[in-house]
């Protein structure tokens, strides 16, 4: 017996519930087969699409039984037509209804006191208030939470405490209270502190106040170091905004390589009900956003309108982390775009058009590009950088902002460096470029907000420590949600003094 084909996807415990949910909707269920056309140059004229069939109104199962005044009549009663029910019949009905109510109360009480884990889980899944997502990998519904669990929050707090130990080591109030770790810093942190002191001295404290551009961190070496946004000719470096194609990120995180989500012409995806294969993993988006925030860029993630209504009335979620996704939406990182006729109903055309309009760094996938015109690498939509994931339990991502390609017939590779990808050149509208810049106080605020979502990994920790310590040392007095000196003191009391 040799290795066979991949095992069948486990049937979710509540699969019937999903399919019933789908079939009960009034909206047509639309296939999004990725068996796309061979040619797609959306500049060519396409044949006029047929008018979309209007969803039929569901006949309300009880509607035909309603009387003129809207009250329902019991068409199955024993009364002869036109005759009123007798008092005895009413009493009988009352008894039956009492039995039903008692049964439902007992049933609910039994659910509340249920000890069997499987039944408890199934009862929980059936409740509309239970937030859940279909997880084929786990073989059923995965219960989601609307806030971090204690264990998750503890891991986040520990990671943030590690950052803030360094950030506030030189803070006068912290020093005066004896809560500083200045005498206990690791060698690498001591070195970073020296670099920051030098950096502030070189560029003056006022360069790190409100109204100044973001500071970049370079990852060319370890540890990553702060970079001043000036060229050798003393010109300010204008960074491009980053446009992240959320669909391409979803595609890169999928195990199934046989199809690509939203690759095909797609209409009215906002009407689609729920498709487990389109479940959106949120952490990869957070990782990409954080990566570029640290580098000093404005970032936006674009998703099809299908995801705008990301939790249904019965608690089914289209994203695997509601806490993080709601935060990203609230911080205006996420934009939901319709897929319209102007773009030939193709998602890639929508996002690539947006990238070209803003001259953005375009994080997407060239596999979605079906245009016949050769790539010249001259515009944003052609300079695609693609994340690559090791989709283990702890997902690992590589996203290098460089491009290396070989022209047809040539043996040598041509490189497009990260500076060319990430920075605006001299040409172009200065006001537009200015409008796309991230300012320092906003950079700090956003980074601090994202630090509250997941435990920050070491490589990013080293970069974030420097950025936050820089503004604290420069006395910038920025908003640092969750990472302020007050937050540090609370964490200090908790982890150092053992106070709750």
């Amino acid at each position, binding site marked *: 017996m040799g290795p066979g084909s991949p095992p069948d996807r486990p049937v979710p415990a509540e699969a019937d519930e999903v399919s019933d949910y789908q079939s009960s909707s009034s909206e*047509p269920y639309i296939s999004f087969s*990725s068996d796309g056309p061979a040619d797609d140059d959306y500049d060519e004229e396409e044949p006029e699409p047929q008018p979309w069939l209007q969803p039929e109104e569901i006949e309300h199962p009880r509607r035909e039984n309603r009387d003129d005044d809207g009250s329902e009549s019991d068409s199955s009663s024993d009364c002869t037509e036109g005759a009123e029910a007798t008092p005895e019949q009413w009493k009988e009905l009352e008894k039956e209804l009492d039995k039903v109510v008692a049964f439902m109360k007992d049933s609910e009480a039994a659910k509340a006191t249920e000890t069997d884990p499987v039944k408890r889980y199934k009862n929980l899944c059936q409740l509309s208030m239970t937030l859940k997502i279909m997880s084929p990998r786990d073989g059923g519904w995965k219960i989601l939470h609307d806030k971090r669990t204690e264990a998750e929050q503890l891991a986040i707090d520990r990671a943030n405490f590690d950052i803030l130990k360094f950030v506030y080591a030189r803070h006068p109030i912290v020093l005066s209270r004896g809560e500083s770790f200045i005498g206990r810093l690791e060698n690498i942190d001591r070195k970073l502190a020296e670099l920051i002191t030098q950096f502030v001295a070189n560029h003056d404290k006022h360069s790190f106040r409100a109204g100044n551009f973001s500071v970049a961190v370079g990852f060319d070496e370890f540890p990553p170091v702060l970079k001043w946004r000036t060229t050798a000719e003393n010109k300010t470096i204008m960074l491009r905004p980053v446009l992240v194609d959320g669909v391409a990120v979803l595609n890169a995180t999928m195990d199934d390589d046989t199809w690509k989500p939203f690759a095909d012409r797609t209409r009215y995806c906002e009407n689609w009900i729920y498709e487990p294969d389109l479940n959106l993993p949120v952490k990869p988006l957070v990782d990409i956003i954080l990566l570029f925030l640290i580098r000093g860029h404005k970032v936006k993630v674009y998703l099809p309108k299908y995801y705008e209504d990301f939790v249904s009335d019965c608690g089914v979620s289209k994203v695997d982390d509601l806490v993080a996704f709601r935060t990203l939406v609230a911080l205006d990182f996420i934009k939901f775009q319709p897929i319209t006729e102007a773009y030939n109903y193709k998602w890639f055309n929508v996002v690539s058009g947006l990238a070209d309009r803003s001259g953005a760094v375009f994080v997407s996938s*060239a596999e979605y590009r079906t245009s016949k015109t050769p790539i010249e690498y001259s515009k944003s939509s052609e300079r695609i950088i693609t994340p*690559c994931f090791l989709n283990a339990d702890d997902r690992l991502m590589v996203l290098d902002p460089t491009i290396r390609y070989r022209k047809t017939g040539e043996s040598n590779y041509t490189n497009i460096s990260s500076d060319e990808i990430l920075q605006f050149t001299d040409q172009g509208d200065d006001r537009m470029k200015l409008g796309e810049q991230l300012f320092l106080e906003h950079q700090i605020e956003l980074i601090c907000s994202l630090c509250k979502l997941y435990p920050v990994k*070491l490589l990013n920790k080293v970069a974030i420590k420097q950025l936050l310590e820089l503004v604290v040392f420069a006395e910038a007095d920025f908003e640092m949600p969750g990472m302020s000196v007050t937050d540090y003191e609370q964490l200090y009391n908790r982890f150092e003094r053992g106070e709750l």
Partner: protein
Amino acid sequence: MTCGISETDKKEYDALECKNITLEKFCSNRLTERLKCERMRNQYLQACPEGKDQFSSVIKLYSVIPNSVARTIVIDGANVMHCGSGYPDRRENSKSSHIPDVMPLLSLIRFFVVRDFEVFVVISRKYAKQDATNFKSAIDRLIENHLCVVVPSSNLDDSVALQFASQINGVVITTDQYRDHASDSLRFNTIVRENRLGIKWENVKCKNTRAPNIENDYVPSKRVVFVNERESSSRMSENDVKMRLYAVPDHIQYEITKERRVLSEPEKKKSKTMALLNDLLAYGRQNCPGVIEEILKKPVHVPNDHSTQQPQPPEQPIRRVDIADEEHIAVYVGDGDEW
């Protein structure tokens, strides 16, 4: 099937995301899994006779340095499949000297996994296609089990491997010296220097056998030798190899290595990974030579080039939809994009 339920079992059951099986069934499944691992091991031992050769120039890789942490191994899949292959490709128009052989790749993965390293492979997409290698289903199984990263055609697989290694202070195993990458930038120069370990392949007398050691390493057509290219490709001693494969507290990136180790939990996944590799090696030993013969009968496979400027639409099956919904489904007619 009955089994005792330990406190560990209960804890792990409580931590399950979806409790749609009972505790008893959960424990039963785990027992089945353990028995399957044992069965795969026995199958591997039976299918692969013991030979006299060792798979690697370095046999033991266990570090005795206090607090040292094993670095993650990133295997340059294409390089290993080509250079470790014992099947010359003499077909007309072939650009490669050998048919990519998955068995050296599997044996190299197994070599590190059995010694408690986290391992994954990086390959470009063309190697996941039919007839690109002699054991496609093994590549598929590695991908399913998150042991293999498939790099899109727009990226270079060796560049991605180096970047993964750089991020987690891992080590790329390859014969390729990456001179072009090293000369590209100071950053890549540093990565190639710090995050790469060179190997070369030597012929063996007892091909496709099991090494006579406790780890039962699989010896395919060739064996691995760790080399130091800076010293005329001389063989590295076991001590030197350990110095490259373990991070010690003095290293500047020690904490990154330690963090990765904690997050990846290779010890937890070891038995399942070993069962998979034993299964694949046992099957491959019997079937791969036959597949090679079939590949040699076919014309040379021309995979997609990285520099392709007109990406070809992939051939993908049409997804099945409910018959009841047909009138609402867009049905493609012919080759054109017609509703």
